[in-house]
């Protein structure tokens, strides 16, 4: 295994940890807004790290570009959709969680 | 066990799960879901078994058949959902009147 392999391993594992944390958050957090928070964090950063881990292994610039494009699209979709879910929840009158 | 047969068995399982739900549940939306899951099971059997010979690219014919099947399934689902809406509009209930064989 070369340096690049170690680098991508570390990045992938780090991404995996973010996904795990996000999933735990999704399951354990008390209301829709905090769950959204956990989910988007995991998606954005976790997927970013996974993509970075794969980009260093990519065979060509085109492949690397496609990977980054996927990440950007997920960022865009994730952000807009969690906004839509959040505003939908507010419109239905779901209260914010207060301890 | 070979992974090909694992997926094929999962396909059989999905078919039977869907069949059970299709017969036992009354809600039409559930029946439509069940039909889609049954379809997924059949497609899985079709594609999984195409990869039986190891280290050779899988047989493309079942792949094409499954793509055909997926399009047919979405057509049927669209028609079924519309019909369900009409039934519930007419009867106020998304279930079929109880089956009595007269």
């Amino acid at each position, binding site marked *: 295994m070369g340096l690049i392999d170690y680098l991508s391993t570390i990045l992938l594992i780090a991404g995996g940890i973010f996904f795990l944390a996000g999933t735990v958050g999704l399951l354990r957090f008390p209301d829709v807004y905090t769950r959204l928070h956990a989910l988007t964090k995991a998606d954005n950063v976790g997927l970013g790290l996974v993509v970075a881990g794969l980009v260093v292994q990519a065979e060509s610039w085109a492949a690397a570009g496609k990977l980054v494009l996927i990440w950007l699209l997920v960022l865009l979709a994730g952000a807009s959709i969690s906004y839509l879910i959040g505003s939908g929840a507010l419109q239905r009158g779901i209260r914010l969680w207060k301890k | 066990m070979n992974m090909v047969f694992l997926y094929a068995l999962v396909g059989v399982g999905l078919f039977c799960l869907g069949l059970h739900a299709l017969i036992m549940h009354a809600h039409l939306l559930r029946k439509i879901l069940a039909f889609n899951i049954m379809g997924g099971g*059949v497609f899985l059997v079709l594609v999984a078994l195409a990869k*039986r010979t190891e280290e050779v690219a899988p047989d493309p014919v079942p792949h094409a058949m499954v793509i055909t099947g997926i399009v047919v399934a979405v057509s049927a689902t669209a*028609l079924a959902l519309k*019909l369900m809406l009409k039934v519930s509009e007419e009867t106020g209930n998304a279930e079929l*009147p109880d089956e009595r064989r007269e």
Partner: protein
Amino acid sequence: MEIVFSDVPWGVILILLPLAGGMACFLWPAISKLLGLVTVSAIAVSVVALFFQVRDAGVYRHTIGGWGAPLGIDLYADGLSLLMLAITALVGLVVSIYSTSYFAEPLSSRYWPLWLLLLAALNALFLSADIFNLYVTLELMGLAAVALTALSGGGDALSGAMRYLLATLLGSLAFLFGVALLYHGFGSVDIAILGQRVEAIPIVWAALGLMGAGLVLKSALFPFHFWLPPAHASAPAPVSAVLSALVVKASFYILLRLYLDIFGPLGIEGVESLFGLLGCAAVVWGSVQALRQTRLKLLIAYSTVAQLGYLFMAFPLSIISGPAVWSAVVYLAISHAMAKSAMFLAAGNLLCFGGHDRIADMDRVVQRLPVTAGAFALAGVSIIGLPPSGGFIGKWLLLESALTQENWYIVIVLILGSLLAAAYIFKVLGYCFTKAASPHEPRTVPVRMEWAAMLLACGAILLGFMAPVVLPTMNIGDPFIIGAVLP
């Protein structure tokens, strides 16, 4: 003439014509009636041309794309396919003429594209020699039939259509599962190649179970007939006619083909006896239920359940009598197609005339709608199986082989079924003469609709004299020889 037309691939035209016609109707709803009639007439002409082609040159085979099985798909037409295509074209033509008067806007412009696509599916189905292709045609046929059933709306029709849709989808999926197993077992979906390669191994039994169950559900064999009466009784009259006459027969046709060419040679006595038993049960149950109905269209629908039973009765008889029984069954099937479509069209006339189809409240129909009443009576003659009619020939041939085999339970059911059929037909005819307790404003029934029903009923009777023509046609290419693998 033969030189000019012998090269034309009439089979392919039979599929492309209604497809193109249906699309044209969708694009120009304003002239859909005209387009529909032109298409249906052209189909009838093409069937006649295909008949001469097959008679002169033997079975029709067309390798689509020039690839040939197993890679490509083949079209195939022997006497059996030809007869089914002919009956489809004939019933289709008359029903189309009926429909021009039956449907008013906006239903009319919705009806024609659906109906032509249904015809395309039927023609493609009867011509196909490829089981995956049969699956696609089955789905096209099923969706078209359901959409047509739900066409006029109303609670009964919609629930009936929904139940029909679920049943037909389930049947198709089971069939597809069987196709998947056969393909992976033997590496082809062509019927002829499968026929050469099948052996008695577990995968074949599983495929037989799945495809058999799916097709039995689709052809409404007792006790899987639950979806048929609500759908056929609540659909618009021309649609009911086509459903009972052609659509249920199509799945029976596939079952027969698979049995003759793939599964039959393996020796499946258990399945044959089971089909025979269920067929007998269907005849008795369907007839008794028909007798109990108070609504005319439900009565006719239950009569269809009973008549389908006769078709399945042939399986156990065919073990000994072979091709003769299958000729009888196909004869019965086409006579029933004519007679039953005539009955549903007549019921549609009565519904249009009185605004209801309650049998007891029919008001002196014989005097006021003599042609319709006559059509119903003539169709009834064929349904009961009285001479001279197509139904009589079919039943007589069946009875003959049951007698020679001394298969008494089938003999008894055949006679009982005819008696019960006579009872429910005469029950309806009896009320045709009487005056209703609450007379109503009659509405006029277009002449075209009355005579369309009459035409089909006469056809069912005429079939009684056509045996010398029909029987040899049916046997072109020896479709009924078990395991006679297509070249």
